[in-house]
């Protein structure tokens, strides 16, 4: 069984993205408050509180709790922030998988893997490109029923 964790690069990317987005929105709200209505100060306050919560609670909690494991017979995914989820999927029931590789994902860690089976779906978020390639090649072999003994020895 191999264990995988979300990429720390993805965590940094989310931090940078959240900071940039909230800064942009705050500037827009600032203009809105000065030229249109005072209500925009409240909107700005809301954005700041939301960004603070995301940066200090949601993201660290998600990245510290998420774990994915792939073995010969099963894929297990543990993730969640406020509702914690442990999902198990039989390899024999996997029908297909979709790997989503974003531009510059080698540097950002924004890679995703969606595993489809009849009636179920499992989403592995924020994998590093190396992990994603490793999991997809393993899944590919398992779906093709090719021998992959490295699973048990790893």
């Amino acid at each position: 069984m191999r264990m995988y964790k979300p990429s720390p690069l993805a965590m940094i990317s989310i931090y940078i993205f959240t900071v940039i987005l909230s800064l942009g929105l705050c500037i827009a709200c600032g203009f809105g408050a000065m030229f249109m209505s005072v209500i925009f100060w409240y909107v700005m306050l809301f954005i700041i509180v939301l960004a603070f919560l995301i940066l200090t609670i949601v993201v660290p909690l998600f990245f510290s709790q998420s774990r994915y494991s792939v073995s010969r017979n099963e894929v297990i995914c543990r993730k969640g922030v406020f509702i914690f989820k442990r999902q198990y999927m039989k390899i024999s029931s996997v029908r297909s998988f979709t790997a989503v590789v974003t531009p510059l994902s080698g540097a950002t860690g924004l890679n995703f893997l969606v595993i489809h089976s009849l009636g179920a779906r499992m989403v592995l978020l924020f994998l590093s490109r190396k992990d994603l390639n490793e999991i997809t090649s393993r899944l590919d072999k398992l779906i093709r029923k090719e021998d992959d003994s490295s699973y048990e020895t790893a």
Partner: protein
Amino acid sequence: MRQHRLIRHIREFFRHRQHPIKIIGYTSKVLWLLLIPIVKYIVALRFDDFHSWFMSNWVDILIITAIITIAILRWVFVFFEMDTKTITSHTGYFGLARTTLAFSDVSTVGMHQSSLQRLFGACTLYIDTTAASLSNTEITLVLPKKRASHILEFIADESTAEIKYTVDSKKRSQLAFSLFFSSSMSGVIIFAGLLFEASRIVDRNIEIRLLNTAAGEISKFTSNIPFIIVIVALVIIGGWVLSFLANLMRYWHFSVTRQGSKLYVKSGIWTLRHDVMACRCINYIDITSSLLMKIFKICTINLNCAGYGDRRAEIPTIAPISNEKEVEGTVEHLLPGMYGGQTTLRTGRKDILRFVGIPVFLLLLVPVLRAVAAGIFPRWVGEINVISLIASVPFVWLIIVKTAAAFHTGIGFNDTHCVMEYCRYYGFHRVVVEREKITSAAIFQSIPQKKTGYCSIAIYTMNEKVKVHMVKQLPLDTAMSILRTNGLAV
């Protein structure tokens, strides 16, 4: 000789085409908008002055001709071929999309005939497989009744000489089923759909005028009650009556037969339905009831099979109303071996508080929202009070339902099956699924559940779409161990 050959060719052409009534289906809805004024003009001219009629309406006539020509061309290009093992349908524009499926993979074949189609001797044939990539029906063809019956018999292999087990539904049961499964929401959806379709064909002003007249008539009789309340009440009652009538027409004359490895379901008055399912493609059975049904000890037996009950407002039932004592017998007759197992891990009296927590919170939210709304709209306090009173009724009912759910929730496994009992919204479900048809399992824990050591088990079963059965408020350790011992190592 040549004449005979020509007739043979023509016959062969029609043998592989849909019923000509489908041409109307292929015409645009706009056709009627154009057709009505043109006919109106020529009637006004008493069919005398064709020349001036043609000169003043030539653009409309041209468009209508184009629409009809395209519809005929579509009809010509859509055809099907069959051999002993497969059926292929050529659909889409110019028959470019070709769908081939093997009879051995077919999960459901349905032959539905509406009253309009009955006038022309046509019916719609639906052929479905368990292919997950296509959630809609794989092949849909409008065919002459005789040919559709022939195809249905061929795919369903009705010539088999095996013993038939038939369960006929009593009229009383069908009435009860329609009563219990009618909802205002679905009625309103049907009504809205009718209005929408009508507005596409006739002038929208007529629709608005009709609604305004109705509103005016209503206000004469209900001058003491706020108008908005009357409208809400009428929508709810009218929607429910409409839904009740639709259900009654859909499930009247309901009968289900098992012969060999196939299930044959027949029902309907307005639209005659005949569906044939392959038993091996049935993913699970779901014995469903509401709280009222539980009190009267009755339930309905539904099943999940790709293609059965998928279409709008259909319920995939095999026994519309069954006595709780008869359920086991009915299932054993129709699907031998599917009614097995007992729940081993159950919730009980001690878990009631956990079940009613959210509904109580929602109920408490109503007076808070009422106070906020009354503060914002002080003129509407009377209406707000009535609406908040009406809004709190579903939550009170939900609290009662969830209290009952604490005694009807559990999970259990035996050698071949998994049994789940759970409550989803206002409905109670007992789901029996073959273990090999479980594709995934998950454990969910919210923050309060994490603190108290409880969890919810989610079992995903084979389906065309993602299908999850959630059994809530179970102790974590026992839930984990029960899943692990049954090969679902969460």
